[in-house]
């Protein structure tokens, strides 16, 4: 047993591909995603203005929208066609149109119409700009009303009660900043690491076959396939776990992403993810003993994890068969546990099915152990 583990550690150190995929790339991914979304929400997205009115009021509104965190007025255009061209050329994400005579109509109470054009081709930019411009319009409307009310001698409370009879209080539980970093990084980084574990597990099993070292490996384990397997997987699991915990430490410890569920649950989740991913990798290699086919399927599955986790586009909005299929993706279970028990503080009992599912993934190799031994002894690697 000791000799087997020592052999495995030597293997891991000897081939640079293991160090790259187990340590370097996961850490790179962690830094990449957290730094790219560092601002939490995109700031100063370029927008344009078509000011056909050109009065002090419209200029004030332009300055107002420019002062918003997410928008920045970069250009004035003469007409809609020019502005639309600019959107198509990727120069701006949207534009505002102040029609001629807007201020005059506003003062004389003839209800002018101001238009906001935004592109949803980049969904996040579109929806954020829409939100900001909607706020600006509400403020604009309120400003007119406020002036009239104050002139009539109403108190500020009376004014507010009239302008906004029903106020909406939003409570963004767990992520009051609506930070996309907090929302996406906790899904993207573990999914990438899981992809690496899928592939590396299948690769390391296939490599024994490919380089003809399996005879030595099985002999050292006294021909016991199960023993050979777990003495191979335990050292790997340790490295994966250390790296995953290091990523968690960076995300939750250094960047202070919220994890009210606590460290204990986070560590449990990390362990479950690693063994489930390894189990899946072993199972695929056992079921399809061709190294490249099993690795290809691991890749395809691992990439689908990003969609089937259901973070960006929720599972319940997908077609019914896909909702069921989502159970076959370990990442889906990771996210359910994370969402309910770490991001929120519900008891683990609420996600028992997901925990059991992950354990089932980890136990999948038991189905193929016998078959694996046969394959190792009977098949040869064909390049």
């Amino acid at each position: 047993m000791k000799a087997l583990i020592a052999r495995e550690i030597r293997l891991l150190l000897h081939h640079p591909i293991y160090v790259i995929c187990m340590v370097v790339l996961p850490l790179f991914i962690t830094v990449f995603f957290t730094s790219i979304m560092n601002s939490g929400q995109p700031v100063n997205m370029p927008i344009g203005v078509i000011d056909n009115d050109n009065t002090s009021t419209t200029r004030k509104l332009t300055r107002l929208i420019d002062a918003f965190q997410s928008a920045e007025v970069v250009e004035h255009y003469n007409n809609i066609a020019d502005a639309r061209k600019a959107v198509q050329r990727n120069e701006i994400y949207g534009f505002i149109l102040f029609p001629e005579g807007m201020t005059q109509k506003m003062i004389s109470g003839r209800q002018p119409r101001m238009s906001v054009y935004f592109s949803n081709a980049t969904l996040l930019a579109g929806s954020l700009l829409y939100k900001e411009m909607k706020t600006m319009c509400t403020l604009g409307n309120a400003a007119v009303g406020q002036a009239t009310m104050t002139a009539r001698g109403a108190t500020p409370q009376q004014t507010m009660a009239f302008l906004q009879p029903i106020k909406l209080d939003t409570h963004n539980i767990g992520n009051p900043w609506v930070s996309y970093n907090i929302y996406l990084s906790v899904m993207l980084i573990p999914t990438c690491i899981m992809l690496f574990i899928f592939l590396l597990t299948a690769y390391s099993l296939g490599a024994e076959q490919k380089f003809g070292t399996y005879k030595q490996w099985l002999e050292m384990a006294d021909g016991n396939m199960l023993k050979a397997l777990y003495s191979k997987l335990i050292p790997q699991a340790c490295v994966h776990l250390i790296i995953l915990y290091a990523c968690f430490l960076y995300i939750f410890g250094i960047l202070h992403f919220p994890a009210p569920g606590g460290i204990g649950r986070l560590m449990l989740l990390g362990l479950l993810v690693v063994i489930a991913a390894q189990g899946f990798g072993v199972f695929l290699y056992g079921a399809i003993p061709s190294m490249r086919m099993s690795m290809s399927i691991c890749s395809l599955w691992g990439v689908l994890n990003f969609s089937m986790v259901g973070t960006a586009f929720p599972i319940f909005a997908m077609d019914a068969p896909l909702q069921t299929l989502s159970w076959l993706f370990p990442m889906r279970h990771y996210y359910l546990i994370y969402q309910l028990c770490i991001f929120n503080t519900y008891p683990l009992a609420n996600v028992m099915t997901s925990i059991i599912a992950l354990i089932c993934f980890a136990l999948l190799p038991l189905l193929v152990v016998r078959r694996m031994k046969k394959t190792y002894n009977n098949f040869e690697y064909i390049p």
Partner: protein
Amino acid sequence: MRPINYITTAADAWYNEIKAILKDEGVLLFFVFLPIAYPILYSWIYNNEVAREVPVILVDDSHSTLSRDFAKMFDASPEVSIALQCNSIKEAKEAIGRSEGYGIIYFPEDFDKKVGRMEQSHVSVYCDMSYMLTYKAILVTANLVSIELGTKIQEQRLGNTTARQDEVSTHPLEFEEVPIFNVTGGYGNFILPAVLVLIIQQAMILGVGMIAGTERERKYVNYKARNCHSITQAINLLFGKSLCYLMIFSVMLAWITLAVPRFFGFVSMVHGWDLLQFFTPYLLSCVFFSIIISEMVRYRESVMLVVVFTSVPLLFMTGVSWPQTAIPGVWQGLSSIFPSTFAVRGFIRISSMGALLSDVAEEYRILWTQTSIYVLLALFVMWRRVQFTNEQTSQSE
């Protein structure tokens, strides 16, 4: 060497490559299965475009006509539905823990009374922030309903005589929002063009990497120069191989950009001629880029280990999920190595925004620049392999 010999060597290289691809199930998987099946799969996943009827839990302590009106209007919207009514926030919270809803809407006891007393009344929305689309749906709907009900209350208080007077005094400034591209705000329409274009590059890198890995394991036997200069041989080989990859991927590209969006009814405003012009440098730079990357592949399987994960970072760096202007300079710099970055940016505008080639001129120029740099590097890679085999054979002789 007569000119005809150049053509025959290139044709030989092309023929060998096709033969090798057809015999190799691993490569076929990436060259044929992946580009055909993945677009269909992704289209299916994102086919529904938007999250409809997001379940929300209602807690109504007010029990008034106004709160019931609010709840009814809220429930009637397409985005959300009231799935459950609870007696307290605590109970509602527990229901969220059982995934019965993604948010809570709460009317306090004095919700109606405050309106009656001419004070500002409050309604609370609690959102589970682990799903942004549900958060957006709940928030936007609650906001719209509160504004609409608020306007009705204002109208009652104003006691105007005509409907027009009501309109003018509640909305002195009318606001019109016009989504110009991807008007439905659909998720599939937004992410799919990017994914589709990216698939081409990734499939090509994986497939070509695998071929190169196999060749390397077999010590590049088919690279041996036959009575011609090694650089000539390298050019011939590169020409033959590229032609083969181009041939396969032109068909795949047509399938991905023309057929798939039509099957699933995604927005597609492409002009055939512009598309052809725009994707020529993309395919070329992808081919040469894959050949360069394949030089780093030691064994045929290891290419998957380092290439597959790049898909998501590459998607991010194109600026589709995270606006390009918000991407830090370092990552923008890194992203400019990859052909997909510019091809995705260009294709989104051509396909979802009806842009012409002149509108994506910048991306088009960069793609040609990449092609011209990568063709030289790819040639160098080929030349090294030819040199390697020549040395090997001279040693063995």
